[in-house]
């Protein structure tokens, strides 16, 4: 089986297969000064990546779980009332924005890397089949 392009999807220090601009955006979202602390942003990013790949997900603050998981898995189903619930829990709009960005980047980068890995596997399989055909043709030619 082909090794994944990234050894640890969801770990921003190990995302070398992502385009440079995307790596820069991820680092900025996770480390630039913001209202959510860096640990929480890293947890959100890692959890979204894990959920997207069907892996066990690490914990994040309780009040963020419902919205964060929905953005990671079914972003198109998010509702106004879920944003309001975060506000009611005391989260500011800036925090909600940062949370959304970190989760989206985690989910998106994990799926992108998984897609590249699947492509590598398909190409490797095709090459193996071609090599097999070529060997058969060579053997037939020798027989003739």
């Amino acid at each position, binding site marked *: 089986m082909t090794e994944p392009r990234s050894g640890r999807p969801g770990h921003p220090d190990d995302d070398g297969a992502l385009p440079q*601009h995307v790596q820069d*955006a991820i680092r900025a*979202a996770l480390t630039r000064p913001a209202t959510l602390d860096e640990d929480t942003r890293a947890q959100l990013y890692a959890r979204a990546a894990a959920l997207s790949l069907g892996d066990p997900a690490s914990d994040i603050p309780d009040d963020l779980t419902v919205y964060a998981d929905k953005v990671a898995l079914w972003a198109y189903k998010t509702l106004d009332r879920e*944003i309001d619930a975060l506000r009611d829990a005391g989260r500011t709009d800036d925090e909600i924005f940062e949370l959304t960005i970190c989760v989206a980047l985690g989910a998106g980068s994990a799926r992108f890397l998984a897609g590249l890995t699947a492509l590598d596997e398909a190409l490797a399989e095709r090459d193996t089949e071609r090599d097999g055909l070529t060997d058969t043709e060579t053997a037939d030619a020798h027989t003739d």
Partner: protein
Amino acid sequence: MRIQIERRLSPVQRALLAVWKLLIGRVPGPMLVVSYRKRYFGNYWASCMQEGMRAARYWNRGEIELFAAFTSKVNSCTY
């Protein structure tokens, strides 16, 4: 209620968005996101969009727009 990004932009940004609205009737979501908190995320994401949408070597601009529109459609996301 969702985050009202437009209300939190600078007057210059709001003027630019008003031009977009005049031209196409609405402000595209990606444009709003890259305009908001540019030093935290917008500037970086604008570079990604520029590379993804405009720096492709194998596909022309129309084909890239078609891919983006199709992907948004199957994601139930207005593009």
